[in-house]
């Protein structure tokens, strides 16, 4: 019997974790505060009670050690989930992830695989300043051997989490904090809350979602910015601009075909990203268009990203530089008006 409830992104993702843990005894979770509080972003809420402390493993503040341990357990055939709270902390364990976990399958000629999921919150917008508000997924997406997922809504969060836990590679699964639906980070965004089936299902990696169809311009986003792009598309309707919204869902693999198919149709492009602008997702999207369909653009594309500055604390400054529905819509209008 199929039944659906409206869930937040965080709850939907956790539901997939619970199902996988119930159905695969080799899945376990390790991380800080997951027993006592369910994790900073509630990714493990209630799990210790349900699965016991052998499978919900509290860890000290030792990210290098924990990622290393999870990698070894994965090499031995288990499926660890590492709860890392803030993706900003990747700096202290980058080597364990990028130089060991992500390279082991390659360096061993395919003998060892590392089926591990690293779960963390990404992004800002709540005055947590420069060291707890970053996205950093572009940094990780640059390194081969990992897959990177950033869901924008509850339905995708559950399906992508099932895919992540079943994947035989290291997967970085990022909850965009602005849409995760955690009460203490503001009211859940209505577009991110979604009807979610109770039974398990997978959303495959590398398949972007056309979350809104349109004909005049393509807005590409992921996580929070794909929600903002939908809001921007509403604003653009007031100017009779029909925007198509492409939600990337995963950065690695990246669905270049869907991006190009949409741009080939609309002839115009704005890429929105909450990560730093230079050398990031937005550049990769523009490169895909430049390489595959160089003559498709009827006007120069634009990017709306976080600027190349550290993230400021004061609300006035942070909101000034964060992408918003308004800045995305403004960029889209400029592209449409400036073009042929």
């Amino acid at each position, binding site marked *: 019997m199929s039944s659906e409830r409206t869930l937040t992104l965080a709850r939907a993702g956790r539901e997939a974790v619970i199902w996988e843990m119930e159905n695969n005894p080799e899945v376990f979770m390790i991380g800080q505060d997951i027993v006592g509080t369910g994790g900073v972003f509630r990714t493990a809420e209630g799990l210790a009670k349900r699965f016991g402390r052998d499978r919900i493993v509290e860890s000290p503040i030792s990210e290098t*050690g924990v990622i290393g*341990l999870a990698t070894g357990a994965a090499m*031995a055939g288990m499926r660890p989930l590492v709860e890392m709270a803030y993706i900003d902390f990747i700096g202290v364990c980058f080597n364990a992830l990028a130089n060991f976990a992500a390279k082991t399958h390659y360096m*061993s000629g395919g*003998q060892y695989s590392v089926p591990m999921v690293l779960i963390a919150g990404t992004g800002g917008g709540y005055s947590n300043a420069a060291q707890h508000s970053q996205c950093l997924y572009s940094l990780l997406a640059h390194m081969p051997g990992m897959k990177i997922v950033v869901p924008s809504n509850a339905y995708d969060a559950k399906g992508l989490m099932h895919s992540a836990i079943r994947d035989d590679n290291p997967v970085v699964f990022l909850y965009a904090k602005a849409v995760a639906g955690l009460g203490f980070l503001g009211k859940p965004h209505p577009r991110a809350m979604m009807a979610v089936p109770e039974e398990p299902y997978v959303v495959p990696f590398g398949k972007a979602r056309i979350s809104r169809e349109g004909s005049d311009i393509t807005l590409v986003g992921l996580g929070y910015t794909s929600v903002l792009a939908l809001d921007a598309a509403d604003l653009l309707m007031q100017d009779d601009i029909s925007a198509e919204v492409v939600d990337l869902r995963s950065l690695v693999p990246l669905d270049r075909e869907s991006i190009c198919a949409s741009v080939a149709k609309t002839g115009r492009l704005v890429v929105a990203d909450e990560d730093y602008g230079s050398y990031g997702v937005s550049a990769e999207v523009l490169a895909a268009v430049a390489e595959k369909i160089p003559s498709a653009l009827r006007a120069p594309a634009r990017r709306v990203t976080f600027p190349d500055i550290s993230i400021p604390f004061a609300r006035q400054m942070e909101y000034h530089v964060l992408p918003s529905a308004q800045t995305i819509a403004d960029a889209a209008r400029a592209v449409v008006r400036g073009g042929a």
Partner: protein
Amino acid sequence: MHELTAERRIWMYRTMVKSRAVDDRLNSLYLDGKTPIFDFRAGILPGELHPSNGQEPCAVGVCAHLGPDDSITTGHRPHHVAIAKGVDLKRMVAEILGRATGLSGGRGGHMHIYDKAVNFGSSGIIAEGIGPAAGMAFAAKFRGRQSVAIAYIGEGAANAGAFHEVLNLAGIYKLPFILVVEDNAWAVSVPKSYSTSVPRNSDRAAGYGIPGEYVSGNDPDLIFAAAGRAVERARGGEGSTLLELQTTRLKGHFVPDALAYMSADERKAMVDMNPIYRDRLTAEGVLTNQEAQSLEAEALAEVEAAFEYAMHSRFPNPEAAFDCVYA
């Protein structure tokens, strides 16, 4: 606990001979094409080469207690440990020579030796194999198995963050894990006496609530005894051990290394354990001279066969570079 039987001592000696023969052969192959002007890119064996000459006792004394279900990760100087763990020698040499038949099809090279059949892996970045070995120990404990997992590091790695984080994890989770520190006294050119705040890293075990033991002498029999105690603790559910083994790095950090950073006295003081152990076994009647000679010939023949296999293996198809990125 395993007894130090004649059979095990002979196995240790034979494995030391085999390991030395591999490194000696690699050493000469490596320099071929790299003289008079040294160039990493040149010759039949490009890249860096960190030979294990002198450190063989650390491998055999520990691995004599292990079976294929026990796991090992090691670092940039992996040959002796790989050979003692039972890694497929032909495919290991083929990997070091960058052949398609290598353990990783030529993607890894000498610092990245993996043989899943005997649960062995190595990583070139210092200290980064410690956590994964602890994870293998975690998996063994989680599944209720008796197997142990061992991380090999050099003494220089004991100042890296992973050393401290993972020993603490091993302490709180009571993992069937052994951290073996091969103390050859030098991290490339930096002496331990300068780099390390305590004379013995094994003393640092106290900070993590686990036993630490230092074994002097680079002596296979003493290492065997200490490793036996550590393995017994791990298999018996008593948790982890930090085992530091004094050893000697006869050929320096990598080939070629003129050891210019060492004093003449330090260079002279380096002792090769292989002939000493041979003399001990013959003096104690464990082996006759004749038996030792035939055992050595047998080991050399095995090594020769591995090099024959590797040298006659084809090079990888360049396009194979794109395989194995993802599982």
